[in-house]
């Protein structure tokens, strides 16, 4: 096995292992921090698959922004630092089964869609910013524009939710 294949296996095992820890750990903050490891290992997988731009975006957006948002959301709540026994839901068998089925569907879709595809990673940068921009602005302009509407909806929704809470919170300082 090549070094790249070995590193990919290592990164994949790291992603799966830390993802399991995200859902099994009893401390919410540890869960958020394990998520950093999961997303970072996933970025490593992307990098090894040649998706250079997506990998760094993964670091920038998910590790840099989304986990910070999660931690802020945790810090809004009362005190979730200790071990919390009430976190484990009784539906965990159903949840595990649902996760397994979703994973199976995703794997099936990817294999059915790109099963025989071969990309020569080492010759040209297939996942560079240039090729991404080319793909977005030549073929996928409409989804790109729809994305801005999604971001707008999320932003307005967050503001509406936070203002509703803030006005009720002022009464009891």
């Amino acid at each position, binding site marked *: 096995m090549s070094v*790249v294949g070995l590193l990919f296996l290592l990164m994949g095992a790291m992603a799966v292992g830390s993802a399991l820890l995200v859902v099994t750990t009893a401390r919410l903050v540890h869960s958020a921090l394990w998520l950093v490891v999961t997303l970072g290992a996933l970025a490593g997988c992307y*990098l090894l698959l*040649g998706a*250079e*731009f997506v990998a760094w*975006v993964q670091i*920038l*957006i998910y590790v*840099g*922004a*989304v986990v*910070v*948002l999660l931690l*802020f*959301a945790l*810090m*809004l*709540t*009362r*005190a*979730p*630092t200790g071990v919390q026994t009430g976190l484990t839901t009784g539906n965990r068998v159903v949840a595990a089964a649902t996760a397994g089925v979703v994973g199976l569907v995703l794997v099936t879709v990817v294999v059915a869609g790109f099963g025989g595809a071969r990309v020569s*990673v*080492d*010759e040209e*940068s297939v996942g*560079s*910013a*240039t090729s*991404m*921009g*080319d793909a*977005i*602005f*030549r073929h996928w*302009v409409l989804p*790109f*524009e729809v*994305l*801005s*509407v999604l*971001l*707008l909806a*999320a*932003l*307005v929704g*967050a*503001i509406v939710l*936070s*203002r509703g*809470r*803030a006005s009720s*919170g002022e009464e009891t300082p």
Partner: protein
Amino acid sequence: MPTAAAASIFPRLTRMDGYYGSYVPVLAIIVVGAVLVTAMFLGNRLLRPSRPSPEKQLTYESGVDPVGTGWAQIHLRYYVFAYLYVVFAVDAVFLFPWATVYAGLGWVTVGEMGVFIGIIAVGLVYAWRKGVLAWT
């Protein structure tokens, strides 16, 4: 040319061309960093005497003993600012691929990016009008 510089430092260690080759210096820095931190902590552990006492184990900040718990509830407005940061980070991420291709694809692409930023800017105007951006 970081690749060329690293190749001249480690000429026979590895092949430094191609996509993976360009990431060998990154991998090397990660490995060196991990080894360095491990060595420092290990050296510390080997050299220092270990006489723990309750006072030494106490968490402290600026020499002051801690009061209460280590958890503080933050105000909601931090969350909104973090959210604004996420939205505009996603926005900025699309500027990178756009910046590499708009010269080749022409003014239509500039207009498309203008529409994208314009729609998100409506959200910023909404936040501003609702007074979310004011820090009072």
